[in-house]
């Protein structure tokens, strides 16, 4: 047998240069970066996919693409400073170079879009879970007419932790008289907060949805999934109608290094976007 070497990808580990064209601070620990590839042409991603962000001499980290696909060579990333790469990224300014590989992973592909068409989309995001969801949210809102309804539930610890506050404001405005709604909740609100108070699951009873006709999309910190899933199960939501994005340690992003493999599932290949029905028995993922 001759090896099928055609699959060898000489550039698999070679990142390409990209420039930071915009930086915005959200909080002390979270920042927004707009990135521009040095080459012409778009990144060519699906919402929900991620890139490996490289800082030479420091390392690589998987970061979700936070903007919807478009034809330009710019895209958005949002990062929370937790370790070597993300902390170094925080010191970067406009015009600095970073390096990226990707897009990688399985995002919201055509098949999922087919399924979503005409359905009620229910986004459930916790904290910086909004980052990966933003690529999808900003993709579907301009095309809201294609969907029965779009409900966005967003929960944070405090009002400082709300990502993209100006975009949230726009969505709130938009929601008047449209089929888009945004419900927010805070764990520890300040005095002037007029929205809901409590964990994110307290928002679920506030929306009116037909589980069979609804597609739920969940992203948040690891503990959030359990509670949200229980609530949705209580409402008899079919498992096939639930999508979520999961994060694990990754070193290569391309299904080799083994770090993100959870019960045989490589999060970087099958995920980060999963259909609940496919993985509900995977004890290591939940």
């Amino acid at each position, binding site marked *: *047998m001759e*090896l*099928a070497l055609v699959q*060898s990808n000489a550039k698999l580990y070679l990142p390409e240069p990209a420039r930071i064209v915009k930086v915005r601070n959200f909080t002390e620990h979270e920042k927004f970066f707009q990135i521009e590839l040095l080459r012409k042409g778009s990144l060519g991603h699906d919402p929900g996919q991620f890139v490996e962000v490289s800082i030479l001499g420091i390392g690589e980290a998987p970061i979700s693409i936070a903007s919807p696909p478009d034809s330009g060579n710019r895209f958005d990333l949002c990062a929370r400073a937790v370790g070597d790469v993300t902390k170094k990224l925080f010191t970067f300014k406009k015009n600095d170079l970073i390096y990226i590989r990707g897009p990688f992973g399985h995002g919201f592909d055509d098949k999922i879009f087919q399924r979503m068409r005409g359905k009620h989309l229910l986004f459930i995001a916790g904290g910086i879970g909004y980052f990966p969801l933003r690529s999808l949210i900003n993709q579907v809102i301009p095309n809201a007419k294609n969907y029965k309804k779009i409900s966005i539930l967003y929960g944070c610890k405090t009002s400082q932790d709300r990502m993209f506050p100006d975009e949230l404001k726009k969505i709130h405005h938009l929601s008047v008289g449209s089929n888009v709604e945004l419900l927010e909740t805070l764990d520890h609100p300040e005095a002037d907060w007029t929205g809901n108070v409590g964990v994110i699951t307290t928002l679920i009873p506030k929306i009116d949805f037909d589980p069979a006709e609804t597609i739920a999309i969940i992203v948040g910190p690891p503990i959030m999934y359990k509670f949200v899933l229980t609530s949705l199960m209580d409402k008899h939501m079919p498992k096939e109608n639930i999508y979520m994005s999961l994060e*694990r*340690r990754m070193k290569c992003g391309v*299904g080799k290094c083994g*770090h993100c*493999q959870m019960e*045989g599932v490589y999060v970087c290949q099958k995920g980060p976007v999963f259909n609940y029905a496919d993985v509900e028995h995977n004890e290591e993922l939940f």
Partner: protein
Amino acid sequence: MLLKTTKTALLKGIDQVLSTYQVAALTKQDSRVLYNYVKTSHDIFWGCRPTVLPPKKFFFPPHETLLDYTADGQIIAKIESKPLVLFGIHPCDLRGIQILDEAFADLHGDPNYLERREKAIIIGLDCHQTCDQDSFCYKVGAHYAKTGYDIMLYPLKDDQYLVEVATDRGNVFAEQFLRAIKGEEKELEEYQQAKAKAFESLKPFKDLEKFPELFQENTHHPVWEHEGARCLSCGSCVMVCPTCYCFNVTDDWELNMRAGKRQRHWDACMLHDFTTVATGENFRPTATARLHHRINRKFNYLMKKHGQSVCVGCGRCVRACLADISPKTIAEAINGEDEKEWN
């Protein structure tokens, strides 16, 4: 194509090969037997002795540079590869290579592995008995190599060898370097019959084909906790396994801060921090969970993908494990072959 040759001719051939290729084979160093490069055919150790590391190190070295870069933004993807002849690889290790080939070619082909692999000619050497009491190749059928070689040698009596040429590359190679006459199919049949006889009493695992389902069902079998409690999380078992290929990646500037490297290093799912993330969560915090993961990769997760047991029964991890933890013991507990009460 089937040929026949002698050991003397093989030795001569190897010495010729050495002018064009690097040759790696079993060698003896001090008291160790290991796969290593040879300078002449005399360096080759012909016995069948288990090595600490499998031949994967030639295609996937313990440490390798993926990228070389400079502070002013030059980045080069680096692959160090040279034409290589791997000589005298035994069936279990051939299976190991075959599985790594599939794993590294899967989806996004790994350029470093595949380039080295492509430049290699693999000459297998069949065994007609197990190498020691720790090996259990026969339990997973890995005492027969199906593929993974270009040329396979079957030892006959009086230092004679049957030569099965399996690939075009092997054919070109054999024509250039092997002085051989035509071999008789009948001789191979006889050889195989004798081998089958020698392995007659050594039976494969009960229900081997059903392992993925069996292991899936037995996630909470008491054997996991029983064995996991003793595990030191030392990672030895993974290092020595011919079918383990997890790695870590590190970046490092040189001291002058003008140039740097991205390197990958063998990593092991048995190590405590393998799944720890920056925020401190560890998705597999216990040795039991990690042992469960390793063994399931062999008999369940990856077995489904590769269509065969990904443990090739070489016994390296058994020899390496001071706590005497063995995939064989666990498999026999899961398929009920051992009739032991694990509770």
